């Protein structure tokens, strides 16, 4: 249950961006949550709705995009989506792969009312 800590970090990031953009209010927050980032999207949603009150995000909508695991296989020289938590190329079965998406939690976009 570290979703509350994640939301606190997210709210701080929103405050910082609102200030940099001279915004009075944030109305929409879009985040990308990797399937293997270690957080549960619906708990994140609940935590956001609880903690946003009386912050710059009060009343803001949170949109969570869940990101599949995407790897780049150096042997195939191609990108593949991993369906299972098995870190090998689903095509050539090689392990010379690099994860390019699906392990991170990212703030992608903010919609704000500016002053």
């Amino acid at each position, binding site marked *: *249950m*570290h979703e509350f*800590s*994640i939301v606190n*970090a*997210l709210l*701080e*990031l929103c405050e910082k*961006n609102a200030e940099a*953009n*001279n*915004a009075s209010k944030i*109305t*929409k927050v*879009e*985040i*990308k949550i990797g399937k*293997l*980032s*270690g*957080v549960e999207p619906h708990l994140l949603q609940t935590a956001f709705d609880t903690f946003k009150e009386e912050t710059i995000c009060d009343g803001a909508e949170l*949109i969570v*995009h869940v990101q599949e695991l995407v790897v780049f296989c150096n042997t195939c020289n191609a990108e593949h989506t991993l369906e299972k*938590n*098995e*870190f*090998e190329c689903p095509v050539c079965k090689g*392990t010379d792969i690099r994860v390019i998406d699906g392990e*991170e*939690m*990212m*703030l*992608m*976009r*903010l*919609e*704000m*009312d*500016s*002053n």
Partner: protein
Amino acid sequence: MCKDCGCSITPTQWAAHAHEHTHDGHTHTHTHHHDGHDHDHPHAHDHDHHDHSHHDEIHANPQLNDKKTIAVITKILDANDTQARHNRAHFEEHSVLAINLMSSPGSGKTTLLEATIDTKQIKLGVIEGDLETNQDADRIIAKGAPAHQIATGQACHLDAFMVHEGLHHLPIDGLDVVFIENVGNLVCPASYDVGSHLNVVLLSVPEGDDKPAKYPVMFRSADLLLITKCDLLPHFDFDVEKAIREARKLNPKVDVIEIDSKSGKGIDQWINYLKMKKALR
């Protein structure tokens, strides 16, 4: 393309609204700003804005309803990661190897550290994370090594800020290794970089060989997997090969040591691992 919000207004619309786009924090306004908005695209500049119907009303009061969308694309834990890099730099300045020890509660993290101190081959210090009590730090200090306890309260993990705080309470000069003994938990600590060089994850025999597959984020993060309490193997249906196979599906490069801190099995290998990693830093 509007530079401020990245929206894609056509050249005609640009011309028509040119007076509104001449300064920062522009005032071009679309009351239904996000209509036709493509949620799957990570960047903000692909929005279509169809509805300009309240344009006149906005002109009457440009301060109201002035929405804009910005692309941020920042890690949510960016501040933590910055602090983690700082912590790592701090360890490096003091030529100390930092190891984040993670596992479920009761898998033998503190007992492993006690056994490590007893070998007298590694000079170590410990930053302890627990919800409550100083018991773990007291056990380390009783063995003669420096330790600082962080009581996290209700927090289920250590983050880079807590470790930084702990660092300044630990005399680290002259140490070979600083262990960050994380809160016992196979979920939350895996999401936080605390500024260590290596993640060592413990899996004790009584927990079962199914844990790597059940807690993929944690076991994927491991540089070294320690299968602990190995002397209990005859009493449990724990398939060591299966546990290793599952862990390597998640991280094909993970190293594994089978260890028992009480009997001393595998401790030599563990000490050699620490010495080698320290020498490579």
